[in-house]
């Protein structure tokens, strides 16, 4: 558009398309899909049923990587927020926003798959166990972040306030992790702390594939979401430029 004869120039509309980045994104997406297909088949057809809990124990192979993916989203939010406070850019803000949305989505999965396992293992969907309570608190912090970003506008002040919340949210992550060791509770410690570990090699393989799959899924979703947020910020500036140039921009989506 820039420099086209007889056309008005809108500086922020210049959006370079990087084919190698697109190729990398689609490669990661394909690898994610493949990993999940293999992992699901492996979990259901190869991994033995656990002796004491039965088939419901297979939730473990998704639940633990999902909790870890929530940490990844929260870490992305923390890094984006911290970087934004140091030097504000659309990309850093987009990373923080996408990370918080990932933390909410994975947190939601964690808070639903865990209680379904608990219904069988504990006979109750929910207990006010230290790890469950701190995990719920953390998810609520990221829900607050997402609600703030959805309804409080997109000015620099709002972005800075959200960045502070993104940093505060990360402070709770070590508390979730060490809550079982510090305060006890019912939450299992099979692969961490004083846990006894997985007694069948196939269980370890399924869990590892779960970690790989959910790491890739978190990367794909945060990446795609951050790109949407960057485009939105760029478009908002382009619309402001267009208004400055005297164009009529009355249709706000």
């Amino acid at each position, binding site marked *: 558009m820039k420099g086209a004869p007889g056309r008005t120039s809108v500086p922020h509309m210049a959006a370079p398309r990087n084919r190698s980045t697109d190729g990398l994104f689609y490669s990661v997406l394909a690898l994610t899909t493949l990993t999940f297909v293999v992992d699901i088949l492996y979990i259901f057809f190869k991994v033995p049923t656990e002796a004491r809990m039965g088939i419901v124990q297979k939730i473990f192979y998704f639940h633990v990587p999902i909790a870890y993916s929530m940490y990844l989203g929260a870490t992305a939010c923390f890094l984006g927020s911290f970087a934004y406070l140091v030097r504000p850019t659309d990309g850093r803000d987009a990373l923080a926003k996408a990370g918080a949305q990932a933390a909410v989505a994975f947190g939601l999965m964690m808070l639903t798959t865990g209680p379904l396992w608990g219904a069988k293992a504990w006979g109750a969907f929910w207990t006010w166990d230290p790890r469950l309570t701190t995990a719920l608190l953390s998810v609520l912090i990221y829900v607050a972040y997402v609600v703030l970003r959805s309804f409080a506008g997109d000015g620099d002040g709002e972005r800075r306030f959200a960045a502070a919340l993104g940093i505060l949210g990360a402070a709770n992550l070590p508390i979730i992790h060490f809550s079982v060791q510090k305060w006890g509770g019912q939450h299992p410690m099979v692969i961490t702390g004083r846990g006894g570990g997985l007694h069948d090699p196939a269980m370890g393989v399924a869990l590892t594939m779960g970690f790989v799959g959910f790491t890739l899924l978190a990367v794909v979703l945060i990446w795609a979401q951050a790109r949407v947020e960057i485009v*939105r910020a760029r478009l908002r500036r382009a619309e402001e430029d267009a208004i400055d140039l005297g164009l009529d921009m009355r*249709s706000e989506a």
Partner: protein
Amino acid sequence: MMASQDSPGDRATSFQAVQGGQTEHYSGEALLVTAYAIVWVVVLGWVALMWRKQSALLARVADLQREIDKAGKDKA
């Protein structure tokens, strides 16, 4: 689930010992399938939201493009 008690009123006024072993339990298969289904519902829901956001952005880009074209024609 507690078959030996008939109504909420009964449960509020008396407690009775279970007969013939523990009867309260959940189906492991149902819980497992529900857990896996919820994971994919949340992922697909997020992708659908992202799709909607992209559609809204495309509409705004089209509006902007139209206004630029109009301004270009007026200028020419």
